[in-house]
Structures are given as C-alpha cells and as structure tokens.
C-alpha cells in the first residue's frame, strides 16, 4: 500500500528580490516592495511530502526521526535566521520562493533517501504558497 506522508516545518529568513542585470526602475517594476534595498523577512512554512510502501514491521513509510533529522540538518540549519541573498545557493539566482522551493527539493532529494521525495510546498505568507515536485505533475 503506497502512502504519502507530509511533515510541516517552520523557519524564518530574510531576502531581497533584485537582479543585477536589470536597472533600478526595472527591478522596482518587477519586484515592487520586495525590491526595497535592505530586504525584509518571512516566517516560512515548509511541507515535505514523501511516499512509499508501509513497512509491515513498523507500520511506517519512514521513521519521522530520520526525516526530521535530514530536514533540520540540511534545510533548517542552512536557512533559518539567515539572509537568503547571502547564501551560496543564491549567488546566481534571485531568492524568490519559487527558486527556494526548487533548491530545497534538490537538497532533500540528495540527502534523504529513506523514502521517495514527492514534493515540497513552501508558504511564504499565509496568503501564498509554492509547490515543486522535481518537474513532475502535482497531484490533487
């Protein structure tokens, strides 16, 4: 029986949406208040969905202690209370939540192998969220 399991985590970080290749007015037109010069912060909520067969010995898809460990070590320790623009992951890209979703998915794909990573869902505020499934179609 294939089951999907989702765990939710919180972290806080700052960012500024700005592209060096654009003029000041173009940046302002594209990113609006997200382009304000000193950046701003969000409380992000990250949902990580993994899937797999339920192990008949444990009743689990994967041990939550292992999933929590990987997410804490690889994602939360890396981004919580950090300025995303100063991170090496965003040297070449703008730290939009779209790009952050993709970065987090790829990090977890590499570092957590105890179950299949289905998708990550990232809430930037209560009003918007982003989902990335490694290029696969998202499921209802």
């Amino acid at each position, binding site marked *: 029986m294939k*089951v999907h*399991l*989702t765990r939710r985590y919180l972290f806080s970080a700052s960012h500024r949406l700005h592209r060096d290749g654009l003029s000041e007015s173009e940046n302002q037109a594209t990113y609006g208040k997200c382009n304000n010069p000193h950046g701003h912060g969000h409380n992000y909520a990250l949902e990580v*969905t993994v899937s797999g067969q*339920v192990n008949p*010995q*444990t009743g689990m898809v994967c041990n939550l202690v292992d999933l929590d460990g990987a997410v804490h070590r690889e994602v939360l320790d890396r981004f919580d209370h950090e300025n995303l623009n100063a991170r090496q992951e965003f040297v070449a890209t703008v730290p939009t939540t779209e790009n952050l979703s993709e970065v987090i998915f790829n990090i977890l794909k590499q570092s957590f192998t105890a179950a299949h990573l289905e998708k990550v869902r990232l809430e930037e505020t209560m009003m918007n969220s982003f989902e990335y499934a490694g290029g696969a179609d998202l499921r*209802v």
Partner: protein
Amino acid sequence: MVYLTRKCEFSASHYYHNPEFSAEENQRIFGKCANLNGHGHNYTLEVTVKGDVDPKTGFVVDLKALKEILNREVLDALDHRHLNKEVPEFLQQIPTTENLAIAIWNRLQGKLHVAKLHRVRVYELPDLFVDFYGEA
C-alpha cells in the same frame, strides 16, 4: 469532474509496539510512541470524493449522506477509543497514521455509491499528515 472534501475530527489513544521486536528495538524505533500506557491525539480526517455534478441537484454527493457514512463507518468506531485495544484492524497491526489512513479508506470504500473515493487524509498533528489514494 469535481472534487469535494469533507472534514471531521476524532480523538483516540494508541501506542506503537511490535511484539517481534525486543524492548530495546521497540524503544529505538518508536521512541516515546512505544510507551505501553499509550497516549492520545486529536485527529483531523479529510475525505475527498470525486464525481460529476448531478445536473438535477448540483451535487457531486449528498453531503448529509456522506456525513452519515463517515459517522457510522469511521467516527463511531474510532472516536474516543483506544485504537490498539478497541479497533479490530489494530489488534494485529500498529496504529500508525499510515495504517490509520489505509484502514479508514477500507472502511469507506464500497460504501459511497454515487461519488468515487479519491483521497483519505489523516492529520495526527497540525504538522503531520498522511494521504492514501487507494494505491497498491
């Protein structure tokens, strides 16, 4: 095709224990969930059905009928119960959220005559939920 989700809550107690494991293994694998005195959760259940909208009623499914099926098949059996001791599925199986989602699916499957069961989502906590789509 329209998807409709009905949400409800139930409270139950459980513990995780596999008699094939040693005491140390149970403790290592299940952590504080292995405490044989058990503990409880307020679960939230979301049941999603899918179907075409009936042109005469505008419904995918009669919500009152769906609520009655949920109450009869799921909530009456699980709410304010000890899952390990009172729910037949878990006399031989560990009542993890994964197995709970599958058990609820099996209880509902075949009982919905108009719409088709699409997904069972069980929240054990606000930060932990399981989805089951009836896949092998």
